[in-house]
């Protein structure tokens, strides 16, 4: 067994401390023949420090498209020739989406808007939407509405939004190659306010945007420093019309190595499968990732793209004997 895995076993599995950046990089560089041992270690870490439960979530776009920002992976930026048009979801449809999500056994429902940050119209919709969901559906409501002011943070917390998603997307050194209309530091400052409000912090990103392995390790280490409650991991699905529209998708084995590396960097975090796993990993790889550090998933469709049916994922979890985390277990 490579020395790095012995070191990781002692530090992460036994002591519950995350790997530092240079060790994360060593993990990302492990050859294919060490991948099974790596995944097994990451799985052992997840089982010891998080347990067998899997947190299931559904997401929906409240406001799609027409975003003024220029995140180069995003089909919802109004600055690119993407075919995605601007559209708002009405409140009855939002509540229906929350009901459908709860029916899968999911405990999380995340409301997302394609904006730099919320304006009055969006905050009004959120207030009405969260209230309507809480009256009709037994599910925890999360939100992802871009950068926030302190006032907006306080307002969302008061509405009962229990977790806020704001992805750093990539490491600090690569961020300017992905986004030019705002900075990594601006995102960090929203995350700091969210943490101080008492809402849970959800922060992850997208792999496969052209970052080096060193930068992937840098990103994992920066997330570990932030210490979020949840880390959603996306793999780039190149979107037509965006600057990253012609990028190759991440290789399955590289994705699995990254999953395990992020688990070893963040032993206690909820590490969630988000977008791109269908293309990057397929059915077999999805299963391997759940046995290699992942302990949460988004089921059903994404914001502008489609996932596989929730039933397929729930059957997989049953087959793996991994119980879906229940609402009572989340308090």
């Amino acid at each position, binding site marked *: 067994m490579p020395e790095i895995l012995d070191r990781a076993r002692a530090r992460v599995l036994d002591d519950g401390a995350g790997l530092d950046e240079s060790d994360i990089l060593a993990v990302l560089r492990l050859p294919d023949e060490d991948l099974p041992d790596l995944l097994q270690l990451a799985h052992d870490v997840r089982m010891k420090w998080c347990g067998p439960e899997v947190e299931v979530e559904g997401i*929906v776009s409240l406001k*799609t498209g027409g975003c003024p920002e220029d995140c180069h992976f995003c089909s919802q930026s109004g600055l690119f020739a993407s075919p995605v*048009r601007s*559209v708002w979801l009405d409140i009855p449809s939002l509540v*229906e989406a929350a009901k459908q999500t709860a029916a899968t056994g999911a405990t999380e429902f995340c409301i997302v808007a394609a904006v730099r940050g919320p304006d009055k119209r969006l905050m009004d919709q959120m207030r009405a939407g969260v209230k309507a969901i809480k009256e009709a559906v037994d599910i925890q409501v999360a939100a992802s509405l871009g950068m926030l002011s302190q006032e907006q943070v306080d307002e969302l917390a008061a509405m009962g939004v229990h977790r806020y998603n704001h992805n750093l997307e990539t490491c600090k050194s690569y961020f300017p190659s992905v986004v030019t209309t705002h900075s990594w530091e601006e995102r960090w400052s929203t995350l700091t306010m969210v943490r101080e409000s008492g809402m849970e912090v959800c922060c992850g990103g997208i792999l496969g945007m052209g970052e080096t392995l060193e930068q992937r390790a840098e990103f994992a280490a920066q997330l570990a420093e932030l210490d979020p409650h949840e880390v959603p991991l996306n793999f780039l699905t190149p979107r037509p019309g965006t600057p990253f529209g012609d990028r190759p998708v991440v290789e399955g084995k590289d994705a699995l190595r990254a999953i395990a590396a992020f688990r070893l960097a963040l032993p206690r975090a909820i590490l969630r499968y988000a977008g791109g796993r269908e293309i990057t990993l397929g059915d077999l790889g999805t299963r391997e990732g759940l046995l290699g550090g992942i302990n949460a998933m988004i*089921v*059903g*469709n*994404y914001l502008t793209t*489609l996932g596989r049916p929730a039933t397929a994922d729930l059957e997989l979890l049953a087959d793996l004997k991994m119980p879906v985390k229940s609402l009572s277990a989340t308090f």
Partner: protein
Amino acid sequence: MAYCDRCGEPGSHAACVAARELEPPRYCPDCRRRMKVQVVPTGWTATCVEHGERRG
């Protein structure tokens, strides 16, 4: 279908058909207008001002 509902170009394209398994349509196949598309966890609706709503 006169136009590809993924890329809006005339005809049908194997790569677009394959990609559509994990994407809703974006262009109206009758008039190639960009449609208003709403994705929800269990489906999608796509609306052309001229040719109405499609669902999946």
